């Protein structure tokens, strides 16, 4: 047989008497766009871009541990930037740990995507089309941008995920003792991992949207997605309750399908926690959102579930123990989280149900999603009967005993990640005032560490829940279900205002629920920015938690605001994996609005976004490794992120130094000249101590060097206004962002010019209302900022 070259066009007529065993048929790809410079970048491909970022935003390290314990030379003491036995220094070691966190986070998304793909191909075949309706032409911005691939069917994601997997393993190798010695290279690798993370999320969400017909731009999708109930009070516990927890929707989807097929929609409650819950509402309209991660322990302890179905990620490691306590059988549905349960995949459902209902086994593993629905629902129906009348909320007497038992020893406070003063609250409850205890309910992140140390064996979490129960059981919010990708048509509308700055920015609250002061702050962030005409795009736990709070009229932020990707919109994009569409929106601004080529062109697009797209992520409760890789993925694409104070424990931040002029010199692509610019965005990753501090910070981080004067004046208005509102003062650096009088809001222009003259010593021509001297640069409407030499149009 003739040797055939891979990738060459090969004409059948050349062959005679040949049988070909077709491995993979690659249709000749339509030439949808010429390939860019960096398709499927490897570790070193985009390192130059990373080093540019890392030079301006020099990695900042705050070790959570001064030791390294990664090999048996250790523990090594690295305090004071000392070297360990392998020669590594503290700075590189911190970079390594950051890379490790991003690795775990990215792997979670990628493995989830791969798992989905396996299951979906098995169920629907490889050829499920990727078609998101008339308004979405760029179906997969990250896939195009990073891989140079335009996916047509879910089968196309095979190579995308293989690429990601290969890269993850390459990066994992770099973690080995005796590899990198430079913290910058560790960070470049972490940024690479972050990019892979974003790509993986896009893959996962696209696969599930395609297969489950989740909302897109077909009817009922986009801004018009329906609302769904949120809160512990939304579950009717008189019915059998199935509770799903995790991130991988197929088992929950099967439960929904089983309920519908068997006419049980109104007889059985299907509720969920975290992202599986969000995604379940995208496929099954009767599903309810019980809570975000922060309340998982409390929901489980409250015993509302007759059956708990877990899949993967963000599941309490003690879920089995907790469910045994409330006599709720558990079904593990994913090989990544099997909790020691016996694998009963393919076993007779009758037998499994029987074993679960009788309590012979505390739970089972069923790894085939399509076998879960029947077992879960039938078990819930039976178990519900047995559990009728049982209550796991403390009785009044129990509550009293416990709060009286407390000796205010303070151990719980020392064990609490937030240092909550439980002893004091107990004391006050014992004296008759339960408010301090009840108030803890929202602030507590529900981790249970306090209970591990209480010498009086007080079930602290239950005590707090009891105190708050009157409100909790009424808790009923409303949330728009996850809408998935932002439409190209929406981008076309807002592209100009966004880039020019007249829509002041995109605020993207993402991720977990480790908030310093409870869920209410999330709602405040959403409200504050939506009211100021920012576009607010939510995903994951923050999308859920912000739905818990209502205004005076009883409306949640979703009810107060429209769901369009437009000024003042409050969008639930979807689960954690859906936040890839926020990247997607930024990328589409460059592609759809600015006409930049996307295919294999990551560096240019990231450069574009960094200088022009005023977007800012906020992970106010950032907790997990996924949050680390998500933020890092935003950062590589040029999008800054603000984290809550716990975020300082990620060990690394990316902050610039506005006082270092050399770091803030950009190239004007128009003529290649170097321009010293205002610090926009000043940081790529920064923690704020309080929400009051975070609000103006986020406004500031939406400022970009490319802003028009009108846009800048709007952004400055909000920056100054939010500072005045929450910090009672002008921000000390607002003048840095003033290039010309026209950058100042008209309403306050005089006042501000006066301040510039008096406080900064700027020269003002009061007649012309012009700034004559002072700004770091003059406003130049044709400024075409870039960090990339190769984008200079004509060299001078």
């Amino acid at each position, binding site marked *: 047989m003739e040797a055939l070259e891979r990738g060459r066009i090969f004409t059948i007529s050349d062959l005679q008497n040949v049988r070909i065993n077709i491995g993979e048929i690659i249709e000749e790809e339509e030439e949808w766009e010429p390939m860019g410079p960096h398709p499927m970048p490897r570790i070193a491909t985009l390192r130059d871009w990373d080093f540019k970022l890392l030079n301006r935003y020099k990695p900042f390290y705050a070790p959570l541990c001064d030791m390294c314990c990664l090999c048996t030379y250790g523990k090594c003491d690295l305090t004071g930037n000392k070297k360990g036995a392998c020669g590594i220094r503290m700075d590189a070691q911190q970079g390594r740990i950051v890379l490790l966190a991003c690795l775990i986070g990215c792997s979670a998304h990628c493995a989830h995507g791969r798992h989905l793909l396996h299951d979906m191909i098995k169920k629907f075949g490889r050829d499920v089309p990727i078609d998101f309706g008339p308004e979405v032409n760029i179906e997969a911005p990250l896939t195009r941008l990073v891989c140079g691939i335009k996916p047509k069917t879910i089968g196309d994601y095979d190579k995308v995920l293989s690429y990601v997997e290969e890269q993850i393993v390459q990066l994992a190798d770099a973690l080995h003792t005796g590899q990198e010695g430079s913290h910058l290279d560790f960070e470049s690798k972490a940024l690479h991992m972050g990019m892979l993370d974003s790509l993986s999320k896009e893959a996962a969400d696209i696969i599930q949207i395609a297969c489950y017909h989740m909302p897109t731009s077909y009817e009922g999708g986009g801004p018009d997605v329906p609302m769904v109930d949120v809160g512990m009070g939304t579950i009717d516990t008189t019915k059998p309750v199935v509770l799903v927890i995790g991130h991988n929707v197929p088992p929950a989807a099967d439960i929904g399908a089983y309920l519908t097929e068997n006419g049980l929609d109104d007889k059985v409650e299907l509720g969920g926690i975290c992202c599986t819950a969000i995604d379940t509402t995208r496929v099954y309209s009767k599903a309810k959102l019980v809570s975000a991660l922060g309340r998982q322990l409390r929901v489980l302890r409250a015993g509302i579930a007759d059956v708990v179905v877990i899949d993967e990620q963000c599941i309490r490691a003690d879920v089995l123990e907790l469910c045994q306590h409330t006599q709720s059988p558990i079904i593990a549905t994913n090989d990544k989280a099997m909790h020691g349960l016996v694998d009963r995949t393919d076993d007779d459902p009758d037998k499994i149900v029987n074993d679960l209902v009788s309590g012979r086994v505390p739970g089972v593993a069923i790894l085939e999603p399509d076998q879960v629905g029947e077992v879960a629902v039938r078990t819930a129906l039976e178990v519900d009967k047995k559990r009728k009348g049982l209550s796991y909320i403390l009785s009044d007497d129990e509550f009293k005993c416990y709060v009286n038992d407390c000796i205010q020893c303070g151990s719980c406070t020392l064990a609490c990640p937030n240092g909550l003063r439980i002893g004091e609250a107990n004391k006050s409850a014992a004296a008759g005032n339960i408010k301090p205890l009840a108030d803890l309910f929202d602030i507590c992140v529900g981790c249970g560490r306090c209970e591990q140390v209480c010498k009086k064996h007080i079930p602290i979490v239950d005590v707090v829940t009891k105190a708050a129960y009157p409100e909790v059981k009424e808790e009923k919010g409303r949330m728009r279900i996850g809408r998935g990708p932002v439409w190209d048509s929406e981008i076309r509308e807002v592209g100009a205002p966004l880039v020019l700055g007249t829509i002041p920015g995109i605020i993207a609250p993402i991720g977990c629920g480790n908030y310093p002061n409870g869920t209410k702050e999330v709602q405040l962030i959403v409200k504050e920015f939506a009211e100021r005409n920012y576009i607010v795009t939510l995903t994951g736990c923050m999308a859920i938690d912000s739905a818990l709070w209502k205004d005076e009229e009883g409306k949640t932020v979703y009810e107060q605001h429209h769901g369009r990707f437009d000024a003042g919109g409050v969008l639930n994009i979807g689960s954690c994996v859906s936040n890839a569409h926020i990247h997607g929106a930024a990328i589409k601004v460059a592609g759809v609005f600015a006409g930049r080529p996307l295919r294999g062109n990551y560096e240019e697009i990231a450069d574009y976004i960094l200088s022009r797209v005023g977007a800012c992520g906020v992970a106010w409760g950032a907790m997990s490794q996924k949050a680390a890789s998500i933020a890092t993925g935003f950062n590589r694409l040029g999008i800054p992120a603000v984290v809550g104070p716990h975020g300082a424990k990620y060990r690394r931040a990316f902050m610039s130094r506005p006082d270092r002029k050399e770091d803030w010199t950009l190239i004007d692509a128009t003529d290649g000249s170097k321009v010293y610019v205002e610090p926009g965005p000043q*940081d790529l990753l920064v923690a704020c101590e309080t929400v009051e501090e975070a609000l103006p910070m986020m406004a500031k981080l939406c400022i970009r060097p490319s802003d028009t004067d009108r846009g800048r004046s709007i952004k400055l208005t909000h920056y100054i206004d939010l500072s005045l509102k929450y910090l009672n003062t002008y921000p000390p650096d607002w003048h840095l962002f003033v290039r010309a009088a026209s950058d100042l809001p008209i309403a306050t222009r005089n006042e501000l010019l006066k301040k510039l003259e008096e406080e900064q010593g700027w020269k003002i021509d009061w007649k012309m209302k012009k700034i004559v001297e002072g700004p770091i640069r003059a406003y130049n409407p044709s400024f075409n900022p870039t960090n990339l030499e190769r984008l200079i149009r004509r060299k001078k």
Partner: protein
Amino acid sequence: MVMEIPFDVANIAGPETGGIAPPEVIGSYITSAKKPLLVVGSELLWGDFFLDIAIEIGKKGIPIAATGHSIKGFVEKEYMDNVTYYNLHELTNCLRDPSWKGLDGGGNYDFVIFYGILYYYASQMLSCIKNFATDPLMRAVSIDRYYHPNARMSFTNISPRMEEQYKDMLRKLVVSIKR
């Protein structure tokens, strides 16, 4: 040196942990500083008293970086001499760089005093200073109600019912800062 449990019990960073000292000792340690900086955070707003202590320290000529939203308090008290809003993360990012010019343009500090800052956030920033602001050495202390192993010196953990004693300690501290 007395042993104390970190306010967050597992906040044990490694072999080098800071000591516990009474207000007078910390005060005289501060007195030894060439160019100190008082860094305050949002917990300062827990009571007028705490803000007043900061202002008293400020009045001794120690500049104040107001982090979190603590600046609010100073504005309300109309004390803005040498008080500058700064994000704590960004501030620490500057502090770790010996070539930073400081809030006054006159150069970096050799001594920082953390006060009124959320425990774990403060701890992380103290960790950065301990590990990286070593050449020249920057000394950092905390005068919060927590034991801070990443600071060179701090108080013990003080429970809410000892609030009065804590206030007393702060008063003593102010007195013992001689400048």
